[in-house]
């Protein structure tokens, strides 16, 4: 536990140290290389910008209109009617679109039930083992102008469902 927290703190600096150190050992002009790479990265961000605006506006429309709230409420009611832990499904659904919004819902669960409760653990695990499916797909596919994504969405949703099922199962066992 302590080792893991220590590792979390040191992960990024150690990675940078390792890469730059290796470059110096190989007698590379490391700063020139860095600047060249940074230039490429800046270009990538600019090319992603229009996609990002589109996506965020879409999520913004759903959120500000109250659709997302209505959806999570309805899903929550269905879930509790079926006897399942109700606050979890909204987290799962929202995570498909927005990591930030899903984290907000998970923090609500932490506040209400505590991070070490079964719901809190399940929410922690769900967010740790899933990705923002629609966000990732739009950024990656639109950046290369691919419109027909074939079986990517079903595959991504299946992987997400497996992650969620495993999270709920494991949280019950902790």
């Amino acid at each position, binding site marked *: 536990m302590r080792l893991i927290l220590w590792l*979390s703190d040191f992960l990024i600096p150690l990675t940078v140290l390792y890469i730059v150190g290796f470059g110096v050992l190989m007698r590379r002009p490391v700063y020139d290389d860095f600047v060249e790479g940074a230039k490429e990265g800046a270009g990538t961000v600019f090319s992603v910008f229009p996609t990002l605006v589109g*996506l965020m506006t*879409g999520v913004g429309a759903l959120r500000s*209109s109250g659709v997302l709230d209505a959806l999570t409420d309805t899903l929550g009611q269905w879930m509790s009617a079926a006897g399942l832990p109700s606050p979890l499904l909204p987290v799962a659904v929202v995570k498909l679109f927005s990591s930030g919004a899903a984290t907000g819902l998970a923090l609500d669960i932490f506040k209400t039930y505590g991070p070490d409760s079964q719901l809190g653990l399940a929410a922690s695990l769900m967010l740790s*083992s899933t990705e923002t499916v629609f966000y*990732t797909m739009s950024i*990656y596919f639109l950046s290369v102008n691919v419109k027909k994504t074939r079986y990517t969405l079903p595959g991504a949703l299946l992987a997400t469902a497996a*992650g969620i099922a495993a999270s709920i199962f494991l949280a019950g066992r902790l």
Partner: protein
Amino acid sequence: MLNNIWAFMILTGIVWAAFHGNIAAVTQGLLDAAADAVSICITMLGVVAMWTGVLKIGERSGLIDRLAGRMEPILRFLFPELPADHPARRLIAVNMIANILGLGWAATPAGLQAMKELRQLEEERNSASSPGIASREMCTFLIINISSLQLIPVNMIAYRGQYGSAEPAAIVGPAIAATAASTLAAVVFCKMMNRRSGRSGRPD
């Protein structure tokens, strides 16, 4: 697919708001979202440029090739049709390594470049067919990517700590297991789809 999802988000939002008297909120929501995209991009600009800069050092010094070499058996298994010394291999390897370590910001630029290489490969393979159709490699790469590869959920541990968890890092073991489950499902699915559909590029 994405066109329909996006249209659905925008249209449902606006129509719903009109019926629930939230239309002013939507006006604000749309404008705020666009402004948020700008501030995210500005943050991204710094972080991504930093990582692509550092990664370039790793690339030029040969370090990335070494690491990518270690990923080679996995790549051969997942992308059997990807030519042996194709530049996409290294980019996919970098994307996966960065994702496993939880360095999402370093993963994205390599991932986007990998997609570019994969599209070029697909164009060379069948120049006659219409562009804009995902190749098998693209599908596999994205499904594996979305299945989440991160081993240590650093952010979640921090949040749990902030909200008074007695043991914030208790989720690390189970999180690795859950991530393994989702990635396993992704790999099995991709393998099945690859077997079913013939050569890449053809409609399913």
